[in-house]
Each structure stands twice: as structure tokens, then as C-alpha cells.
């Protein structure tokens, strides 16, 4: 995986526009109604990958922007329809535990869908299963031992003085 390559992604591939157009053409008479929102969607679709998570935004009149952190991702779906496969593209859908069955984020129109999926897989929730039990108490034990020694010395000192 090359994270830099993933971080560099900000726009979908040009093929996505064609996919939208083909989908609209297939609907027939609805073409003029459906095509405008999709073209605007393609034109305004922006992806933003950073160290913490992914942001997706689109929309002209109604702007939508969602952001998901890697640690909250739990299912990754890769879906590729027939037309998408013809264009060599794929859609990566990411889900969190939120209560909807639809994907929270859809990253459409990417040629690097496989790299992206692997990239997400190495950062999502559950990457670090049962880490070697970290023991913060060990440090505490050392400090406690020091306090004990200090007290012991104090008492010894006190007893010595009493004896004098």
C-alpha cells in the first residue's frame, strides 16, 4: 500500500461521468430529468483522505459533506456493476455501526479501488486485536517501592534519633 497515493485522491475518474450518462440513457424518457443532478454530482464530487479519516462532499444547491474516521469503519464493501467493470472502475462502500443499512460513505469511480480497500482494511476498526497487555501498573509499582523505601529510611532515622 502506498498511503501517499491514496491521500492524493480527490476526484473520481472521468469514466464515472460516462457511467452516469449510460445509466441515464438506459432509463429512456427520464434522461433529461435524471442527467442534470448526476452531472452536477460528478462535477462537485470531492474526496479527502487524511490521517484520521475520509471526507466526501458533493452538491451544488444542497451540499452534503460526510466524514468518517478510520477507527469507526466496520464493513467495507466493494461493488462493481457491469458498466463500472467496463470502465475499469469500482465503488468502495464503507459502513459504520450507525443504524442504517445503506453505506455511510460511497467512494465512487475509482480505478484504485483495490488499493483503497486494502488501505482501509489496514486502518479500520479491529486492526489491533488484543494487543500485548500493556501494564501501566508496572510504573506504579516502582513508585510505590520507592515510597516504601523512603518511609523505611524515615523510620530508621527516627528510631536512631530516639535512641540517642
Amino acid at each position, binding site marked *: *500500500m502506498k498511503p501517499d497515493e491514496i491521500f492524493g485522491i480527490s476526484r473520481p475518474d472521468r469514466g464515472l461521468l460516462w457511467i452516469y450518462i449510460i445509466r441515464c440513457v438506459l432509463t429512456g424518457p427520464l434522461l433529461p430529468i435524471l442527467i442534470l443532478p448526476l452531472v452536477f454530482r460528478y462535477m462537485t464530487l470531492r474526496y479527502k483522505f487524511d490521517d484520521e479519516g475520509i471526507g466526501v462532499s458533493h452538491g451544488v444547491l444542497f451540499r452534503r459533506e460526510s466524514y468518517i474516521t478510520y*477507527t469507526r469503519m*466496520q*464493513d*467495507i*464493501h*466493494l*461493488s*462493481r*456493476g*457491469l458498466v463500472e*467493470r*467496463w470502465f*475499469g472502475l469500482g465503488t468502495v*462502500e464503507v*459502513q*459504520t*455501526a*450507525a*443504524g*442504517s*443499512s*445503506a*453505506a455511510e460513505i460511497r467512494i465512487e469511480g475509482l480505478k484504485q479501488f*483495490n488499493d483503497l*480497500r*486494502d488501505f482501509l*482494511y*489496514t486502518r*479500520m*476498526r*479491529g*486492526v*489491533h*486485536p*488484543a*494487543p500485548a*497487555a*500493556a*501494564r*501501566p*501498573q*508496572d510504573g*506504579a*509499582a516502582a513508585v*510505590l*517501592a520507592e*515510597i*516504601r523505601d523512603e*518511609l*523505611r529510611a*524515615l*523510620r530508621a532515622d*527516627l*528510631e536512631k534519633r*530516639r535512641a540517642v
Partner: protein
Amino acid sequence: MPYKTLRAAVLKLLRLPAGPPEPPPGGAVVRIFNASPKYLRYRLLAVFIGALAGLILSVLLLFGAMAEGGILWFAFAAETLFGALAVFFGYFTARLDFEMRYYILTDRSVRIREGVVFLRESTLTFANVQNLRIRQGPLQQLFGIADVLVDTAGGGSGKADSETHQGAGAHRGAIQGIENPAEIRDLVMGLLRKFRDAGLGDPEDHARSAPASEEPVKRMREILAEVKALRLALTR
């Protein structure tokens, strides 16, 4: 074999990747398996029933045409042709769907690849799995197959599952049409056990579940003894 050449041509046309999908990166692959051949027979049952219905309709139309002639001959020819085509496509897609279906178990996740026209690969990590279920309908019982359902956290719309379970919410992975559901379930359970916090919960929660060390308590007891002795020494 004609099926093989046709299959190769269709795979190329549909841009379907042959062979199993790539396993998720990192971690060991525990098992790669397919649906049972019985699953194909189960899927073909619907095609068979459809073919039977078409055949009956064809025969009826043929009798009608022999009695009346005219337009019914045309209806008979059209019905037979379309029926044959539908059966062929039904058989072909069912077989292709069966052959393109892959399940990959790794030590961290399960990946399910399904679909012919609409290809879908779901990767569900065990850290998020809420429950495992086995489902078997009466027909599946007859064929000796069952589905293992892997549910992850999060709800779904109340979409009813169809016979093929394709309407299942996206928070679910279905390992469909296998003969040894209990074995697969136990295998996944064993892998799941490594993820103590499977399900919801904080990814940073691990520290809390670390086994408590005995040492601090011991040290504190020593300090207590020391302080008691100190007090004794002072008040003597």
C-alpha cells in the same frame, strides 16, 4: 466443451475476474471455499420449475394452434423461443453465479464475493461481528445445504430477505449454500474468540482489560506496614 468456451466469452464480455478474489492484506488465510454443488442444484430448481411452466404453456398453445390455426401458431412459436431462451439464461446465470461465488476466511475477517452482473465483495472484520446464525429453509433442508449469516453492528432497513437473501442489509454477510454450516460457524467462532471486544466498544479499551498486576498491591501493603510502624515509633 461448449459451456467452457461460452463461459470464457461471457466472462470476458462481463469483465468478470476469474478465480478467487484477493484475500485481505496481512494476516493468515484460514480457508478459501465455495458454495456446495448442491447449492447450484437448489438454484436450478427455480429454473426447472419455470421451464416446466413454459413447456405446459407451449403444449397448450400447440393444441390450440392445431385446432384454430392462424395467430396461435405465431404465439406458440414465440412462446417456445422465448421460453427456451429464458431457460438457457436462467441455467447459465445460476451456474455462473455458483462458480463465481467465493468465501475467504482469514484470521481477522471474512470476505464474501458474489454476483455476476452486479459484483459485490463484502469484507466483514471479526472485531465488528455481533452474532453468527445458521439459517436453513425447508427447500434447503431437502438439498442438505444451509446459510451462515454473519451480522455486524448497526441496524438495517426492514427489507425482507428474498429466497436468495440478496435483499439482506449491508450489515450482514451471508455465506450461502454450504453443506457444513456448523463446522464453518465453529471455525468463525474460534477466530472470533481472539477478539474479546468483538462488537461495539472503544478501540482504546484494551488497556482496561489487561490482567491486573499483583505487584502494586503487594507494595502498598508493605507501605501500610511501614507507615504503621512509623506511627508506633513516633508515638512511643
